[in-house]
């Protein structure tokens, strides 16, 4: 492996890791704060990718189009979706056993996949990157690197930074952190925990949908794409420590590196490497790297 290939693999692993982080951060928030093991989180990623495909012509007809307008419309829809979902399907489940919520989210996966199949069909689609970002940068003498992937990494990084600031610097972030530590205490201080949950859920859904939309031009859009990302994101959440945004960032970058370099260097065992890494880390630190609360 020469230097240029190595650099490209590094960029790829960072980009994959950051994308994982976007999906996993919503998962870890919903998990850590609301205590909901949300198996349907991968479906939101899938919904995002399909939105990038299906909304583009509609947005083009109404607003004159463009990739970024589609992104904006998609995120607004996703927030609404998350808000309504929490209200209809989860708001009555918090006092029940966790496994009941698992069952509920499993049902939601099936429903989302079939609705997707009814509305958009089962074909594999491609989404074009916006013309502004479709070029590629030369790297070394022979290699090039697509600008869009760099853009993805930058967007993910900006979003991660934004989340960090919201968490550590704002009142909302403080309430969320407090809610994850002690629900009753926060409630007794006069904070509407139900509304807080609804916001967290909607934000988690919106971030996952956004991740799906951004990833669509790179990964193509296909049925079942949510399931494959879901399990890897659970691995990230658990390695990072449940409820910890910082942990999710570190863990997703780690998984990005392990997976990308594993596929490049030892393709025979690449599939299992991520799980070996998780098992080793959990045997070393049974609560994950950065446990919140």
């Amino acid at each position: 492996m020469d230097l240029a290939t190595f650099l490209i693999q590094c960029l790829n692993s960072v980009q994959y890791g950051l994308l994982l982080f976007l999906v996993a951060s919503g998962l870890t928030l919903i998990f850590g704060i609301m205590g909901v093991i949300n198996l349907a989180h991968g479906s939101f990623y899938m919904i995002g990718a399909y939105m990038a495909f299906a909304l583009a012509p509609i947005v083009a007809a109404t607003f004159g189009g463009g990739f970024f307008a589609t992104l904006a419309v998609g995120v607004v829809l996703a927030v609404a979706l998350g808000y309504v979902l929490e209200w209809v399907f989860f708001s009555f489940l918090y006092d029940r056993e966790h496994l009941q919520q698992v069952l509920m989210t499993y049902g939601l996966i099936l429903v989302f996949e079939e609705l997707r199949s009814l509305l958009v069909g089962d074909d594999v689609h491609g989404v074009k990157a916006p013309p502004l970002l479709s070029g590629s940068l030369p790297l070394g003498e022979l290699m090039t690197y697509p600008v869009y992937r760099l853009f993805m990494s930058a967007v993910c990084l900006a979003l991660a930074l934004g989340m960090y600031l919201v968490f550590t610097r704002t009142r909302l972030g403080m309430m969320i952190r407090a809610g994850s530590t002690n629900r009753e205490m926060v409630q007794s201080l006069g904070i509407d925990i139900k509304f807080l949950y609804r916001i967290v859920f909607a934000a988690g859904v919106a971030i996952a949908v956004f991740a799906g939309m951004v990833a669509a031009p790179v990964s193509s859009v296909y049925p079942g794409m949510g399931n494959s990302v879901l399990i890897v994101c659970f691995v990230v959440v658990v390695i990072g420590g449940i409820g910890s945004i910082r942990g999710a960032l570190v863990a997703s970058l780690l998984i990005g590196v392990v997976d990308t370099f594993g596929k490049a260097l030892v393709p025979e065992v690449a599939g299992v490497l991520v799980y070996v890494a998780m098992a080793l880390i959990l045997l070393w630190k049974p609560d994950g790297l950065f446990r919140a609360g």
Partner: protein
Amino acid sequence: MTAPLLSGRLLFVVAAFAALALYPMVAGPYGLDLVTKIMIFAIFALSLELLVGGTGLVCFGHAAFFGIGAYATVLLTGERDAPSLLWLMPAGVICAGAYALAVGALSLRTKGVYFIMVTLAFAQMAYYVVHDTPLGGGTDGIYLMSPPSLAGLELGKALPMYGLTLGCLAGVFGLLAVVLRSRFGRALAGIRSNEQRMRATGFSTYPYKLAAFTLSGALAGLGGVLFAIKDGFVNPELLSWHQSGAVLIMVILGGIGHLRGALIGAFAFALLQELFKSEAVFGAFAKHWHLGLGLAIIVSVALLPRGLVGLPQAWRDRLVGRTARPVDAQPDADADAAPTRSATR
């Protein structure tokens, strides 16, 4: 637990097994095959119920043990002509149990959600071993060359296979019923409700949990052995996390904390699948059977907090009026059977 309720439960189990024993008289070949498959999944779900309901350990990688049992059957049969079930079945069960022992020894160091994920990780490792190495025949899977025989019966045929599966199901159900009522089972129940307290009273909990995990994995392997003989074919999908998820869903759907819950859950899950898949009922829409299954699951979560097992109770409450009954008959099932709930909540 009052006496009439107990006999009601016993009556249900006896009636269910009697119905299963009489079913071949009225069944066609399709029905016989379907019910054999469902009974195999019921064995699988029962093995998981020992962990989830009996011990409070949620294993999300149970398909690995099922798949190892199935693969062991096919690989050990090899080129042999109709090997005897008397050694083949124990061999498959021991393989699954041995893997469960190894996985349990490591993963029981973690707790709650971390335990769920570590068991998933070990299952994924097993999945990739059969998926990517020549040992397991890759994605295509392998065929069972010759179905085993038991005392002159060819198990490749539908009826003997049905009988064998029913016998195994009854055996597993009976075994677990005895185990859960034994001192060992009581200790597991104690671990489920409060592990700290169990340790304080002088129980070394780790060996108990490990024994339960190994037994559960071995029984799942038994299901896998039967599955391989019935289908005559194994592929890596048997070990996939979808399979682990499906069996967990069966246990939750039926109702955690009751053996018959796993039984009911396996039947309900498979029959719902058949119902929504059937073109006779839904016509062209049967292609989208996941939608119906998903909605049925969501409705059951919304209306049945205790799973399908709680259904008669819910009806009684409706008839008698909620206030007429004192506290729920099983307070500990609600308060303590939430292994993944963090202590701060």
